[in-house]
């Protein structure tokens, strides 16, 4: 019987999505400012 540690998997998947989507969103906002010449 595998150990019951699904919460760690969920934490790892959430953290990954937050970092990668967050960084992409930050680039998107910065790109908007750079392209508009603000």
């Amino acid at each position, binding site marked *: 019987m*595998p150990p019951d540690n699904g919460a*760690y998997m969920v934490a790892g998947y959430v*953290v990954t999505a937050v970092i990668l989507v967050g*960084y992409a969103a930050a680039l998107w906002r910065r*790109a908007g400012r750079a392209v*508009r010449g603000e």
Partner: protein
Amino acid sequence: MTLPTAGPRLVRRGLVICALALLGLAGVYVLAIGYTPVEARQGLAQKIFYLHVPAAWCALLAFSLVGLSSALYLWLHDARLDRFAAASAEVGVAFSAVMLTTGPIWAKPIWGTWWTWDARLTLTLFLFFLFIGYLALRAALVDPAERARFSAVVGILGMLLVPFIHLSVYLFRTLHPQPVVLKPSAPSLPPEMLQTLLASVAVFTLLYIGLVTARYGIALAEEAREAADAA
């Protein structure tokens, strides 16, 4: 005012690639959770492997390319190489953050501790701090030629750590698992796990390309704006 340079075009292209890669990442989540078997001894926590390994691959790829482009910059003095190094370093730090957070989250249920100061983990943390320093150095220097030259030296030094990190599990006594794919013998994974891992590596690499393209385009647009302001 819209700037008439290649910057905005590269930014758009990069962001489209990022959007496709993030959709691919959602597909990797579905594959990892629904398609791969649950590992008998490690349980569901083992599935962090499908994100941790590709993040580590992209971080080491990014920092290796920073070193290579930095060495080429010192030789050729081409500003495009410096711009690429800066973009790759920033994206590499983002992937390192994924690697350095998912690793401890996996280690806690499997090793019983969040962190241990073994060679692989310690060298990886040093690499992360070194590239934080690289970005801080770039932000601190105003003169573009001086900034490119000094940061190129730091970038090359960072690249030199990469082979030690990959080989650290062979060179030192370490808790970190041995490689299961990038090793002299055939990959030692069941087909479902190997397919999901390779799909994830492809998606993360696509995301790396998209993020670097967008970041490079932003740098280009910012430089064009500064040139226009100075004129």
